[in-house]
């Protein structure tokens, strides 16, 4: 029993960061109709910046347990900086163009960010040296779970609730949902679409960088983590349904838990099972479990 719970908890932990990145993918796809391959790269950038922030925070003599505060701050700030730059500098030119070109442009961003990371941080993997264990472990129903993992899961749930609140109950959320349905309508109602696009893309970027920042205390960073994560995030949105937030949530849980079950039982089948499910979903219900609906 104990091991099953352990597997479940580690699956949910993976799912929580995966959800953030996938949510970033979904919101941009929902509004701009751009499938952003670069959201994995934002995640990688967030992770690298996070490691710098944590290390300098500890080296600066600040109380170590508080490292999570500047970590989250850095994740948010980074997204707020690079989001508008990438949107204004590149993405805005391909709105309304063929999907092929949009996909290729985000692929170009993936290539560029990968080398930016290599240029700044080199190619060798880096860790925070197990700083996450400073919070200790907790015994939950017979499973030992690092407290840090629980904090990340909690953060992710709060963000999920926040996104839900923004989308359903604020003016900005209503605008997003309206433009996701019909762009011309938003324009006709006098909404500044340019600002909406900047905000939405920045939101997508922030979710990615924050996800990356949150994950690094528990794992090592490598320069390929972006291109590796995007295929997982891709699996999440396909299973959940393109453009659907609920889909991102359920999809992330499914992929995260499935991955950790596979790792502990049949490691050979780890990614294989996920792709088989992706293909099965695309064949049976190409719009995904929750696709075709609202953002």
């Amino acid at each position: 029993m104990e091991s099953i719970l352990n597997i479940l908890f580690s699956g949910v932990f993976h799912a929580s960061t995966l959800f953030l990145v996938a949510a970033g993918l979904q919101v941009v796809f929902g509004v701009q109709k751009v499938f952003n391959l670069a959201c994995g790269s934002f995640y990688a950038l967030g992770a690298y910046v996070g490691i710098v922030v944590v290390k300098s925070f500890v080296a600066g003599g600040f109380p170590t347990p508080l490292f999570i505060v500047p970590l989250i701050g850095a994740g948010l700030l980074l997204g707020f900086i690079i989001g508008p730059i990438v949107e204004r500098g590149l993405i805005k030119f391909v709105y309304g163009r063929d999907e092929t070109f949009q996909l290729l442009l985000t692929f170009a961003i993936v290539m560029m960010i990968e080398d930016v990371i290599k240029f700044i941080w080199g190619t060798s993997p880096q860790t925070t040296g197990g700083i996450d264990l400073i919070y200790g472990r907790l015994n939950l129903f017979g499973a030992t779970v690092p407290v840090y993992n629980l904090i990340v899961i909690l953060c992710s749930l709060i963000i999920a609730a926040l996104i839900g609140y923004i989308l359903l109950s604020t003016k900005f959320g209503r605008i997003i949902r309206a433009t996701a349905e019909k762009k011309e309508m938003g324009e006709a109602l006098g909404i500044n679409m340019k600002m909406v696009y900047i905000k939405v893309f920045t939101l997508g970027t922030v979710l990615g960088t924050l996800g990356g920042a949150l994950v690094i205390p528990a794992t090592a960073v490598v320069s390929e983590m972006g291109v590796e994560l995007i295929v997982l995030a891709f699996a999440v949105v396909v299973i959940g349904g393109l453009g659907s937030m609920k889909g991102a949530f359920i999809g992330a849980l499914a992929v995260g838990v499935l991955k950790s079950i596979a790792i502990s039982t049949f490691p050979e089948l780890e990614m294989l099972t996920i792709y088989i499910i992706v293909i099965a979903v695309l064949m049976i219900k190409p719009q995904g479990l929750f696709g075709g609906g609202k953002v």
Partner: protein
Amino acid sequence: MMSLKSTKAFILIVIGLLLLGFPLVASQYVSYLMLTFFAYAIMVLGLNLLFGYTGLLSFGHAFFMAVGAYTAAFLTGKFSILCMEVIIVIAVIISSALAALIGLVCVRYIKIYFAMLTLAFGMLFYSFLLKFYYLTGGDEGMRVLQPHLLGFNLSEIPKMQFLTGNYYFYCFFIFVLLVFVMWKIVSSPFGLCLKAIRDNPEKAEYLGINVKRYRWYAFIISGAYAAIGGVLLGSAIGHVDPGLTYWTHSGTLVFMTLLGGFGNFFGPLIGGAVYIFLQDKVMSLTTYWRFIFGAILAFLVIVAPGGIAGVISSLVKKEKSIE
């Protein structure tokens, strides 16, 4: 004054002769790069039948290339089948069968869903190659032994000399043959149907074209082309690894196609050549060649989606209108 058609034919023959005589004047290294060009050119030629002519973007086409390369590795390494012609035929059979199977699923969708499905199949194969290491060598990959060409065992010749000599001419003739076959395909009624499907699938359906079936045929042909390219590339490198089928490698193939210009028959070939030689140049200058290539790709997408061929043809048109 020569007509446009005979001018074009003349240019092609000159380029063909230049390529044929290439190893006699160029260094071994440059000839070797040219060899990889032949392999990639065959792949993008197949990819463009799908992308440029049928309007379907495959983001997992490296899958078929890896199928070809691993077929060569398995046959030479595990079954001691060294005859190149047999390897190519078997690779074509396997890849066509796989393409037929995968194509049945994929051609039901277009645009982003088609791209995603092909990407998923490519990554499925990637994780298979990576995880079943006792069969595939995992991330270390497998060796591809030197094949026999036309039944001749040429293992006496030093490797580099073999590659830039006998093997070069062998690949050149396969390349020319496949370019010719593809030219026949795209200018046949079948090729015209594909273009009609790309431009307006509903209208094509009204005209009695079975759209899905034609997309399926195009998918199979392009899969077979990619596999032949994979066999040639695998034998040239002498080694295969799972990175061949990773999604970023599929992206590279699409990049080449776009760079040259997907709207033109020869565009992808130009793109392949420019990509390979430019990559070699940039890599010798900086380790951060990906950044530069990413910037080039972004520029192409935003400013010149027609690629090199598109720019050339618009220049030619401008000149004509001035005359």
